[in-house]
């Protein structure tokens, strides 16, 4: 896979990070990603990432579970092997609710977790480039993708002026994505103008 040059700026406070994200995006640089030790709410919007659709996937998995349970049980108990239990109806819907519910939850949960791991490329034995070991400790690591036209020194200085406590230039593989997740996003500048 193609290697690329990235400029890395580390911030130690999310209150500095947010204005810095705004500055970097207004200046037209492309933020590859920001690695944070915990979920910083609002950062995804500040970066212009679109909402995740994971919950929609979860809903689809859930109704798959519901239909699996209902169609499976009704086929088994009314067609494949109907049992006469004290003359009660074969199609005993109320008695199937518990299993239907459990399968709905099971399908949704398992499906969502697998999807989450798949689209985020999380798996045991996977090799990933980690830009900074303290990204999982106390640093907010902003990684900016460069092109041939980027003036790397300028960018490093720009990041430092935006409040980065540590800057760095690294060459890394881009990693594989299943499509670019933010390509349809309206640029940040336009948003500010609109607001």
């Amino acid at each position, binding site marked *: 896979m193609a290697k690329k040059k990235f400029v890395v700026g580390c911030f130690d*406070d999310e*209150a500095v990070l*947010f204005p810095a994200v*705004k500055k970097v995006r207004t200046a037209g640089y492309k933020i590859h*990603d*920001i*690695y*944070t*030790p*915990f*979920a910083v*709410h*609002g*950062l*995804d*919007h*500040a*970066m212009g990432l679109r*909402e*995740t659709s*994971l*919950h929609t996937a*979860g809903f689809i998995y*859930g109704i798959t579970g519901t239909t699996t349970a209902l169609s499976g*049980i009704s086929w*088994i*108990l009314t067609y*494949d*092997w109907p049992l006469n*239990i004290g003359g009660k109806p074969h199609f005993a819907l109320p*008695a199937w609710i*518990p*299993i239907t519910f*459990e*399968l709905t*939850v*099971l399908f*949704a*949960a*398992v499906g*969502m*977790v697998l999807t*989450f*791991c798949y689209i*985020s490329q*999380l*798996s045991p*034995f*996977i*090799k*990933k480039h*980690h830009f900074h*070991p*303290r*990204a*999982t*400790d*106390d640093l907010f690591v902003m990684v900016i993708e460069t092109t041939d036209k980027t003036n790397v020194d300028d960018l490093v200085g720009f990041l430092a002026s935006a409040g980065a406590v540590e800057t760095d230039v690294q060459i890394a593989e881009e990693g594989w994505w299943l499509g670019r*997740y933010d390509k349809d996003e309206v640029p940040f500048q336009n948003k500010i103008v609109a*607001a």
Partner: protein
Amino acid sequence: MAKYQDQMHLKYESQLREPLVYGTKTYHDVTEDIVRPIEAKPSKLWYVGFYIAVALLMFGVYAIYRDVTYGIGQWNLNKTIGWGWDITNFVWWVGIGHAGTLISAILLLFRQGWRTGVNRAAEAMTIFAVMCAGQFPIWHMGRVWMAFFVLPYANTRGPLWVNFNSPLLWDVFAISTYFTVSLLFWYSGLLPDLATVRDRAKTKLRKHLYGVASFGWTGSTKHWQRHESLSLVLAGLSTPLVLSVHTIVSFDFATSVVPGWHTTIFPPYFVAGAIFSGFAMVQTLMVIIRKVFGMEDYITMGHIEAMNKVIVLTGSIVGVAYLTELFMGWYSQNKYEGYTFWYSRANLFSPYGWSYWGMMACNVLSPQIFWFRKMRRNLNVTFFMSVIVNVGMWFERFVIIVTSLYRDYLPSSWSVYYSPTVWEIGFYLGTFGLFFTCFFLFAKYFPVIAIAEIKYVLKTTGESYKDNMGHLEHVSAEVFAHSGHGHTVVENESAS
């Protein structure tokens, strides 16, 4: 702090709330504090505890070996008391297993910030408790090599299917779903914290093992965004799931026509009891963990008190359920119900009267002590009560199962006094061994507190940060709403 001043109002939380994290902590301090037990050599106490747990586990394994070899005839069950210690223990462990997911799911939806300090260990406890619970129905089958008969698949024995109308099969689905979902919830939450341990690892082996365990977590914003969505939906799914599991366990009894079981009050009564015993077990473990690992800043008195409040609430709900049952035993004017409740149970001098009054004393009377704030914030009382509650909840299941079965409709089928054999007790002790072996290993190799989640609430609820925000109490609402340069962030947060 000066640069932080601008957006402080975004993090503002009332001064009336107790801090969730004590001391002057930075993000790095949080990492250090929580990862320390993993990186340090375990103490002597850990080894002693671990070996005792393994010894108990071995005894349990031997008891099960005998069970498989000689059959469950080595238990004192008989034709009348077909369910005894084994199912009592099953329900007891499943009940304990309710607290973890309740804390992580229901309290997440209710936005209870204090859950962050205790959710990780509570979830681990849930998983281990459900593992222990699962042992009982499995080995009770006797011919355990036939265990796969409970799985629904078109087989060569018919084609014959399992009975989907049976509460026992609902239980198979409920418990296995609960275990799977709890495990996924717990482990997906662990990924970022395992990555923290990985990135601090000094040795190659450690880095590799935690690297594998953390699935290559990087902390990417997009991953966090999905992770948040995942946690929220899993919490939404787990909330009815927690309630459904013990509801379905109660259906095992409630759908039968045995006096004392055949009641509509069972589902809410069982769920309240499960939360009650689960929180008690969490208290037992938390009081030890905070002491042994020095986590007093993270598992604070506020946490202990909050859990004691849940204990007194659910204990009282359970108490109301007991009294309602007694009342209905009389009010229904059903001879059999009346006999079960007023003779087999509530009569202290009946053969099992001791278990009923033991249950009443432990579950209903003694938790009332937690109406007093001083008692809720007393560690010794908390620890003692947490054990008492679980003793009481064991009695409850024993009362329900054995006192209903031993004398039901036909006096000629009444049973002699049932007491367990050493192998029934050994099996029970073995599950304690399994539980604590797992828990000791968890405490040694996994972060017992959710690091990332503590960091997330640190600047809102950390003691030093709260102190710095004190001046905002006196700021007018107008100024408060428009202070600082945080407009864009405000906009973005409201959009999320």
